[in-house]
C-alpha cells in the first residue's frame, strides 16, 4: 500500500485544523454482507476521511440518529438484500424530518438501474453497483459534499 509522507498529513491535520470530511458507513436491515462496506470504509480512511462504521443489522432509526450525533457530511448505505426501495426512502425521510437537509445520502450494493434512477429522483445521491471503483466514490464525495454543505 502506498503511504503519504506522514509529516505533511499530520501538519495539515493539526496546524490549520482543516475541516475533515466525516462519513457514516451503514449496514441497515438484516443483510450481513459487509465486504463492500468494509472495503469502502478502509478506502475512505486511506483518502483522509473520518469514517464512522455502524456495524451490521442497524435499523433506519439507528442509522439516522448516529448520523446526526456524528454530524457527518454523508451517509453511505450498503444494501445487498434487495430491500433498498424500502430502506433508502425511509432513511431519507428520517433525515429530512430531523433537519439534516445538507447531509448527502448515497450508497451501494445490488441496486438495479431503474430502481436507482427512481431513488435519485427522490433526492437520494449516487448509488454504486458491483465493480465500482473506490476512487470514483471518493471523487464523488469530495465533489458533492462541499456543494451541499454550506457551513
Amino acid at each position, binding site marked *: *500500500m502506498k503511504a503519504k509522507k506522514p509529516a505533511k498529513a499530520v501538519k495539515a491535520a493539526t496546524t490549520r485544523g482543516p475541516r475533515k470530511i466525516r462519513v457514516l458507513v451503514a449496514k441497515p*436491515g*438484516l*443483510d*450481513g*454482507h*459487509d*465486504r463492500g462496506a*468494509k*472495503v469502502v470504509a*478502509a*478506502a475512505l480512511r486511506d483518502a483522509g476521511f473520518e469514517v464512522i462504521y455502524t*456495524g*451490521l*443489522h442497524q*435499523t433506519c432509526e439507528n442509522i439516522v440518529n448516529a448520523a446526526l450525533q456524528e454530524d457527518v457530511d454523508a451517509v453511505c448505505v450498503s444494501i445487498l*438484500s*434487495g*430491500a433498498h*426501495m*424500502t*430502506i433508502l426512502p425511509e432513511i431519507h425521510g428520517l433525515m429530512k424530518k430531523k433537519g439534516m437537509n445538507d447531509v448527502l445520502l448515497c450508497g451501494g450494493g*445490488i441496486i*438495479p*438501474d*431503474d430502481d436507482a434512477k427512481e431513488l435519485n429522483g427522490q433526492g437520494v445521491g449516487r448509488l454504486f*453497483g*458491483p*465493480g465500482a*471503483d*473506490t*476512487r470514483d466514490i471518493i471523487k464523488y464525495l469530495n465533489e458533492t459534499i462541499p456543494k451541499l454543505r454550506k457551513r
Partner: protein
Amino acid sequence: MTDAEFKRVLRDWETAAAKAAKEQRSRFPVTLVPGEKILYTHEDLKDFDPDRDLGVPGRYPFTRGPYENMYHGKLWTMRMFAGFGTARDTNQRFKYLLEHGQTGLSTAFDMPTLMGYDSDHARSKGEVGREGVAICTLQNMETLFGGIPLDQVSTSMTINCTASIALAMYLAVADEQKVPYSRLRGTMQNDMLKEYIAQKEWIFPPEPSMRVIVDMMEFCADHVPKFNTISISGYHIREAGSTSVQELAYTLKDGLTYVDYGIKRGIPVDKFAPRLSFFFNSHMNFFEEIAKFRAARRIWARHLKEHYGAKNPESWRLRFHTQTAGCSLSAQQPENNIVRTAIEALAAVLGGTQSLHTNSMDEALALPTEPAVKIALRTQQILAHECGLVDVIDPLAGSYFIEDLTNRMERECEAIFTSIDDMGGMVPAIERGYPQREIAKAASQFQRDLEEKRYIFVGVNDHVEKDEKPLPILKIDPRVERDQVAEVRKFKEKRDNGAAKRKLEAIVAAAKNNTNMMPPIIEAVKARATLGEICDVLRKEFGEWREPPIYW
C-alpha cells in the same frame, strides 16, 4: 540424467525463457504464487512420498478422493440452491428442478428466517421472501415440501443460527408423511463459526451457538443418522474476501473446533465425525483451487487420525459440496459469467467434489431467473457427459505443479492453525476479531489490485463496454411479503396459544438445565410456536451477539 545435469538444463531454459518474456501479466491475487516460478519439475517433488502424501482414492490420506471409485460409482450431485418468495413459489421451483434432472434439493431462506424473525416482525419489513423463502411456521414448511416425498430426496438447508428450528420443522413434516427419521437424507449448514467470521448471520454469542450445534449433532447421531449435521463452510469466508489459503485454514479449523466440542460433550468422535461435511468455494484461480480441495482432504484426514485418534475411516474422510464463486461474477457483460462458472465447476470436479452448485450468470445482480438457472444446470451436465472428465480419477495427480501447490497449501494452512491455537483456539480468535480482520485486509488488498490493474477482471476493469443493455432480472413481487405476513398472522390466531407458550417455556428449561434442546424444539414447532417466538425466548436466555469493533 543426473541431478547436476538437470540443474544445468533448467538454468539454460530459465535464461531463454526470461529473454522472451515481454508482457506484464495479470496476476491473480493469491498468497501462494508470488514466485516468479513459471516451470515446475521433478526437482520440486524431491521429498514427495506418494504413499504418505498421495495414497489411493478412498483410502487414507484421501488426497485423491474420498471414495474408491469416485464418479464411476456415483456422479456428483447436481444440487442447485433455490429459494425465494413464498413456500409455494419455492415448492414450484423445486419441482421444476427435479423434473429437469436435479438430484438433490437445496433450500435458501430469506433474511428474517435466517436471523430469527417472523415475517410480521418490524425488522422483517422489506426483506420477506427476498433472498430466499420465508419459513416461520410449520405450515410454511409443509407447503415447501408439499408433494415431495422426503424419503426420496436429499435436502440441504442453508440455515445457521435458526437451523435447529428448521430441522425440527422438517422432522415434523416427516412425521406427517410417516417417513421414519432414519430414512431422511440431507444436510443442515448449521456452521455458526463461519457466521461470526464471514456471513454474519447470528443471534447468540459463540458459546451458546456451539451448544445448540452440539445438541443437534448429538440428536442426529442417535435419531437422524443419514443427515449431515454441519456443512462446515469456506464458501462464505471466500466470498467475504479471504484468500484461498485463509478459506482452507479457517474452514478446517472451524471443523476441528466442532470436533473438539463434540468430544467435550462426550460423544465418541467416530459417532459424529462421519456426518461432518464441508462446503467450499470454487474461484477463478484454477490450479490453486484444485490444490486446495486436495490439500483439504489430506489435512483433515491427518488431524482426525493422528491428533484425535479416530478409528473409523469415515471420520478421516472429508466430503464436500462446492459452489462456484459468486464474488467472481461481474454485473457487467453477465454472459461472461457462464464461462467463469464453467471453469470454476471444472476445477471443483477435478478437485473431487461430491456435490456442486453452479451460479447463474445473473447472480451478481439478483436471484437467478429460470432460463439462467437452466444454463447453470446444463453446464454441470455437459461437464459430466461430454468431456471425459469422469473417466479417470484425480487425473492431475503426479503433476509437479499440482502436487507442489497442494503441499504448499498444506504448509500455509498449518501455519495459520498455529496462530489460531496461540490465541486459544477459534472461538477466542473470533471474539477478538482475528479472522474477521484478516479477511477485511485481504478484501481491501484485492480491491487495490483491481483498481491498480494488477488483476484484470474482464469487462469490469478492462474490455469494458459502454452502454450495456441491462439483463432482465428477477424482481420479487411485493405481494409476497403481504401474503406471507397475512398467513403468519392467521396461523397464530388459529392455534392454542397456551400450548405453544408452554412448549416455549420447555425450551428455556432445557437451555437452563443443559439438556438437549432438539426434542423440546420439535414439540414447540408441533404446538405451532413460530420461528420468531422460539428465537425470542432464546435471545433472552443467551443474549445477542454484536461484532467486536475491529480495525483494519
